[in-house]
């Protein structure tokens, strides 16, 4: 495996994991909070809870690792390979949060991934250089 392949795979893994685990931690935190009333104060309290903070930290890491990956990899590569996250997220919903996932929801999730992969097959630039 070349150096480029290695760092691309490593960062793809980091991007997918920080996104999926960030959403998962955020969900744990918000479920613990129970109902949110609409006051800004209740949002502030939610943000300060440990699980939500962990979620936000992971999602910030997700943003930076994705920006780093995009600095050498094509968006049209990054978009489809990271869309595996939608499937992982559904698996986590089912086994970790014991959510009931109907066949309709599975097909919906798979169609979304199919749509993203299809768009990933097109050229990443259709506008003129420095337009």
């Amino acid at each position, binding site marked *: 495996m070349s150096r480029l392949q290695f760092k691309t795979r490593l960062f793809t893994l980091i991007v997918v994991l920080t996104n999926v685990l960030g959403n998962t931690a955020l969900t744990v935190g918000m479920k613990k*909070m129970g109902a949110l009333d609409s006051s800004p104060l209740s949002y502030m309290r939610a943000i300060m809870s440990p699980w939500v903070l962990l979620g936000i930290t992971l999602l910030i890491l997700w943003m930076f690792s994705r920006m780093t990956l995009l*600095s050498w990899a094509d968006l049209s590569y990054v978009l489809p390979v990271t869309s595996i996250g939608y499937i992982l997220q559904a698996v986590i919903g089912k086994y970790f949060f014991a959510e009931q996932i109907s066949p309709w*929801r599975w097909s919906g999730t798979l169609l*979304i991934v199919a749509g*993203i992969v*299809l768009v990933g097959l*097109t050229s990443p630039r259709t506008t003129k250089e420095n337009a």
Partner: protein
Amino acid sequence: MIRWILVGVIVGSTATADVLQTIEMKRHGEVSDFRPGKLGRMFAKLLPRPFLILTVIFMALSFFAFMKLLTVADLSFAVPATAASFVLETLLARLLLKESVDMRRWAGAALVACGVALLAV
């Protein structure tokens, strides 16, 4: 019902943020120097631009609505439902950013739309 309203807020604010961000980054021109120090200086210079300030505000709005959505809906609903932003963004890219969206991209956006529609079943 409340969950679809929240999905609407998330999708609307994400799409607005992404369009504003794209306009400002295209106005800046292609980034060719990826050294961390240079990137940091570039972001520091770009951040005060009005469109990027608005971008941050809309992203925050989208994030708060996502937090709220997680309290009223399953994670396996919330994550794919917000993918509807792909569809709105494809439309806005064509109409506002004048990108030429070919058949495969429309087909991709249509597949995503069908996928989100299935979540309503």
